[in-house]
């Protein structure tokens, strides 16, 4: 046995020693070849991922290099401790895809999907391979806190995975309702952001009982979005948040402009580089889809894709636009929050779930969204040390910054799952108290989800009844 391990180590250790970007170049190229992609296409994807990883590191370096010192001055002059730079989702996705474990968690979730389809426990075939990184991050957090307990991480990822597939099934009639899709349209999603639905539904029920009159004051979301115009786009956000930090951080006029321009530039670049590694993951996504659809040939199912088919609904953008300044305000007054919202200030990790639960009631979306934002800010603060460590490991973090300079994503999907991952990870180190707390938390999480499934089932029964009575 030990000789096998030694042999494997002697084979793989030199590869691992190359660092994340070269390693992933090789791994993704080989994987794409296994998926029968042409060699030149496979290599193109591999090279693009490696360059994306390198580019993300360099943009993170530029952004934190300019913002970290300014934020330090900001802390000094305002007394508000906001020292974590919010880089948004694209860098986190790239960093996570730079870890081999993401491929492992992908395998686990694909196998889980197949098993659930065979056992008829779900009707959703998930082809949204890219977004596996959301579950992978949960697993990686467990490992980070549990001294690399892969077993515990796998268990939590499987639990969340099962719920996500069930959630994709029960949300389907609501998607049809929101987007006027015929029953024959198979679109659904297993995206992690909708795992916040149970909590949002809890609040939505309170509105049903106590403040149903508020829906009368709903306004036209499309009109509002038109008025906001370019002020909600990435470069504009980077620009005026740079000015904001510069002024409150008492920077010179010259430095304030530098913050504004660097902020705008980096937020735009994150998106551009983000598109690079989509094409790197593409062969893998196509290969897995081919394999799965062949396996279940002839069977009708829903197909899980990324959430933006919902982006057609203007309410989610109106809510995101209005929640942005509210989040900035929260960030300034919440004790314990250390994030200055920047890359994640347009909360697309939150508003799709609000849209689904409230079915586009814009005022409910804004009010419940306002109450949810602190959860995101605290979660983003809690995972910042982890994110920074991982970024350093894959070489995507500048070395010359002070030790307390950190990065995170302020509105990362699945904030509750991040807390659970930390708690479960800590339980992995033993101690009866930690284990009991972790068990209790996971139990509450599951019970709340079961309650939510019941609510959604009765909602879906209403849809069916309406159709029958027509």
């Amino acid at each position: 046995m030990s000789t096998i391990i030694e042999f494997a180590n002697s084979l793989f250790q030199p590869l691992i020693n190359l660092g994340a970007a070269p390693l992933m170049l090789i791994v993704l190229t080989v994987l794409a070849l296994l998926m029968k992609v042409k060699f030149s296409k496979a290599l193109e994807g591999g090279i693009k991922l490696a360059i994306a990883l390198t580019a993300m590191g360099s943009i993170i370096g530029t952004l934190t290099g300019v913002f970290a010192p300014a934020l330090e001055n900001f802390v000094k002059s305002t007394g508000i401790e906001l020292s974590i730079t919010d880089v948004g989702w694209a860098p986190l996705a790239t960093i996570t895809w730079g870890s081999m474990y993401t491929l492992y968690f992908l395998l686990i979730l694909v196998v889980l999907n197949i098993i659930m389809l065979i056992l008829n426990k779900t009707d959703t075939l998930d082809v949204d391979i890219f977004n596996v990184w959301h579950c992978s991050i949960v697993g990686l957090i467990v490992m980070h806190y549990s001294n690399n307990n892969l077993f515990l991480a796998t268990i939590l990822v499987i639990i969340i995975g099962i719920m996500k597939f069930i959630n994709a099934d029960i949300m389907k009639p609501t998607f049809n309702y929101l987007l006027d899709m015929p029953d024959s349209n198979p679109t659904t999603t297993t995206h992690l952001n909708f795992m916040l639905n149970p909590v949002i539904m809890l609040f939505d029920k309170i509105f049903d009982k106590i403040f149903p009159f508020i829906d009368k004051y709903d306004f036209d979301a499309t009109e509002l979005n038109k008025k906001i115009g370019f002020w909600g786009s990435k470069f504009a956000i980077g620009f005026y948040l740079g000015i904001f930090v510069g002024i409150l951080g008492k920077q010179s006029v010259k430095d304030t402009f530098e913050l504004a321009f660097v902020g705008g530039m980096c937020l735009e670049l994150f998106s551009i580089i983000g598109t690079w590694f989509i094409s790197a993951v593409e062969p893998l996504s196509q290969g897995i889809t081919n394999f799965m659809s062949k396996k279940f040939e002839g069977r009708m199912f829903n197909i899980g894709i990324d959430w933006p088919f919902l982006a057609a609904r203007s309410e989610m953008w109106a809510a995101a636009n209005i929640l942005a300044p509210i989040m900035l305000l929260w960030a300034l007054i919440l004790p314990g929050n250390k994030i200055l919202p920047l890359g994640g200030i347009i909360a697309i990790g939150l508003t799709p779930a609000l849209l689904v639960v409230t079915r586009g009631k814009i005022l409910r979306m804004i009010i419940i969204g306002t109450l949810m934002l602190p959860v995101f800010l605290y979660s983003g603060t809690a995972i910042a040390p982890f994110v920074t460590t991982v970024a350093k490991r894959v070489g995507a973090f500048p070395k010359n910054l002070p030790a307390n300079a950190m990065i995170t994503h302020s509105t990362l999907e699945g904030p509750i799952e991040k807390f659970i991952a930390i708690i479960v990870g800590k339980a992995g180190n033993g101690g009866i108290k930690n284990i009991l707390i972790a068990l209790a938390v996971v139990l509450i999480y599951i019970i709340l989800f079961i309650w939510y499934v019941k609510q959604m089932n009765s909602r879906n029964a209403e849809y069916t009844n309406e159709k029958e009575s027509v």
Partner: protein
Amino acid sequence: MIKILAACGAGINSSHQIKTAIEEEMENRGYSVKVDAVVIKDITEELLKDYDIFTPISKPKLGFNISIPVIEAGPILYRMPAMSKPVFDELEKTINQLKKNN
């Protein structure tokens, strides 16, 4: 050259899948097209004027009349040839019509 606009939530994932698929398939069918991918929220009436065809995932409410042909490209994201074919066929038909009108 036909200019097509794809859109999604961040202008990164879904819209780029649509972009890549359309460019590849239309090239195979002998058409020269260029597809741009943007965040759906950033689309203005002015921006759309620069394009010949709009291919969102599902039909959006933008607050103004869309004066160019709209083809829902959502089925491309299922990654199954049988499901994306109708989208490409419709696209081809529209491109031919646009060419005829010019």
